[in-house]
């Protein structure tokens, strides 16, 4: 197998690869646009996944949209796009608009929720979603569904008791859960070595007797391969897996962060030279699937789409103040199935 056969071995078609590349470009462009909106004072806050697109797209491609429970965390722009959320929907959340399908403007942006796509509701407290994923898997098993639960989180989340308790339960009951850590080296300013006594998040899997895989998170195909394998195990009743995608966050933690206080330009530059998008673009060019020129054209097109989506979202209506009290509890008249 030469290096340009990798996607074939994985059963990915050329159109799959083009879609993956498109998703990575789109997520990047979207996140970058959000920073511009913050600087323009149009939104109060943003958080992005720039640099982590390979990890996110690789993982999402291995899931069944609308079937599997997906519990992404706040950096997973590319994940939700891959599952079917539109650019405009993400921007509606960015602006906190009334018809933001995630939360109707109640949550910070990137706090996902899309029941129709089985994208679970994401809150801010770190790691609380891990037990939720276990619960989704439990529900799926009990209902006789084939669904698995995929949940992502950062390297910081691994320190929390929730991580331990969730993996422990999932392992005891061999539940179909994929625990997917996007190890981007930092939890805000705190470097991984102050978060973890072991060099790899995947080393933690031994405590639960489950597979622990470390994968190059900037290699979209490698991530896809690892998650697909874990999904196979999950669907075959072989229980949970822990996957660590080693990657890097290019931008500050959020729009409230100044990352120059805790990491050097050199460090950032070194990681940027491993940009997962460039890398995947290189692979596509090498395979003759997308020439550099076609890639550049695609990037332009994506930027235009992103800009248009942002513009449309900006013009969408704001939430009505008097709706602030709705849905603290069920409303009988809301017509929703309880």
């Amino acid at each position, binding site marked *: 197998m030469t290096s340009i056969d990798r996607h074939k071995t994985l059963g990915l078609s050329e159109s799959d690869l083009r879609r993956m590349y498109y998703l990575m470009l789109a997520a990047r462009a979207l996140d970058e646009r959000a920073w511009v909106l913050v600087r323009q004072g149009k939104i109060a806050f943003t958080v992005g996944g720039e640099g982590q697109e390979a990890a996110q797209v690789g993982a999402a491609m291995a899931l069944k949209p609308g079937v599997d429970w997906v519990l992404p965390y706040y950096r997973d722009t590319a994940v939700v796009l891959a599952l079917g959320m539109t650019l405009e929907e993400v921007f509606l959340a960015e602006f906190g608009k009334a018809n933001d399908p995630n939360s109707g403007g109640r949550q910070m942006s990137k706090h996902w929720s899309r029941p129709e796509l089985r994208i679970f*509701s994401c809150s801010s407290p770190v790691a*609380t979603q891990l037990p*939720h994923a276990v*619960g*989704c898997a*439990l529900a799926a098993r009990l209902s006789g569904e084939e669904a698995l639960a995929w949940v992502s989180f950062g390297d910081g989340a691994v320190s929390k008791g929730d991580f331990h308790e969730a993996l422990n339960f999932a392992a005891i009951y061999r539940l179909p859960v994929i625990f997917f850590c996007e190890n981007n080296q930092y939890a805000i300013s705190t470097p991984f070595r102050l978060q973890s006594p072991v060099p790899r998040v995947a080393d933690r899997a031994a405590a639960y007797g489950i597979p622990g895989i470390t994968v190059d998170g900037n290699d979209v195909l490698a991530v896809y391969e690892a998650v697909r394998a874990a999904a196979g195990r999950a669907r075959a009743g072989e229980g949970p897996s822990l996957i660590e995608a080693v990657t890097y966050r290019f931008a500050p933690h959020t729009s409230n962060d100044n990352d120059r206080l805790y990491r050097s330009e050199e460090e950032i530059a070194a990681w940027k030279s491993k940009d997962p998008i460039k890398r995947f673009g290189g692979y596509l060019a090498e395979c003759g699937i997308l020439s550099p020129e076609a890639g550049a054209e695609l990037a332009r097109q994506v930027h235009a789409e992103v800009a248009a989506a942002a513009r449309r979202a900006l013009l969408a209506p704001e939430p009505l103040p008097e709706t602030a009290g709705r849905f603290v509890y069920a409303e009988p008249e809301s017509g929703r199935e309880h």
Partner: protein
Amino acid sequence: MAVRNIVETVAHTLREEMRRDSRIIVIGEDVAKIGGVFQATKGLLSEFGPERVIDAPLAESSLVGIAVGAAAAGLRPVVEIQFADFIYPAMDQIINEAARLRYRSNNGYHCPLVIRTPYGVAPGGGGGLYHNQSVEGMFCGVPGLKIVAPATPYDTKGLLIAALRDPDPVLFLEHKATYRAVSGEVPDEEYTIAIGKADVKREGRDLTVIAYGLMLHQALAAAEKLAKSHIDVEVVDLRSLKPLDKELICRSVRKTGKALVAHEDCLSGGIGGEIAAVIMEECFFHLDAPVMRVAAPDIPLAPYSRHLEEHVVPGRAALEKAMRELARF
């Protein structure tokens, strides 16, 4: 109509609802094989099997967290926290997750979850500082959560069915001293009691006592004693602590002009402050006396030694004294 005590009623009602609704699962520490340390889930494992009745690992935070995920994904989990004193590791999942899920997803997800837990002092039971606590005061400020605390087998069945069918998270508090001590007739047919509705357990004209759980029974007993002194006490059983039945409370207080709120929890920060404030806000000009509170002093509940415990835990005597004082106004 069967006569059952409260813990039997819990087990019986769970069984009946589990037969009717296959989405209900019961999960907690020691709830399956032995049917719970108080036997509140007795018999469920043998009827419903280990898929629906789960002996969970010792980890309250994920116990609730897993139930939140399962509830959002279509099940109707009933979590048992073995003692209310051990609920704190799960606060994050209860407050930040279960209670906010519907709101934050703009009605996209919801969390039909029941958290059952025995609370309160079992007098002389030797439970000490970590098997006697009341926690309701801490949760009554959590929007998105409902809290019920029945005091009779009849109300236990009706409220437990209501909780199990409620589309939102319900904290279901069972006073452990009532588990075996309080028995009563429980209709065989299914019925619900609306969450948020209090109940006048004894009518009276002179003053209103508002209580729940074990204190309800102490209040009723004290009211009988006062009746001999021709003091006619109305006893309101809150039953639901969130939402509060302000309407019934105020109707009673407007009638009697005097109110006493009783709970076993510490005075400061207990739910009594909220109730007293509501009464003042809504019935100020009907009040002939300040709203009184009978509660434990601000001391950790409850020291082990019976000599200390009795000193700390408010009982019928304290209630009676306060009621007489209030009547004299």
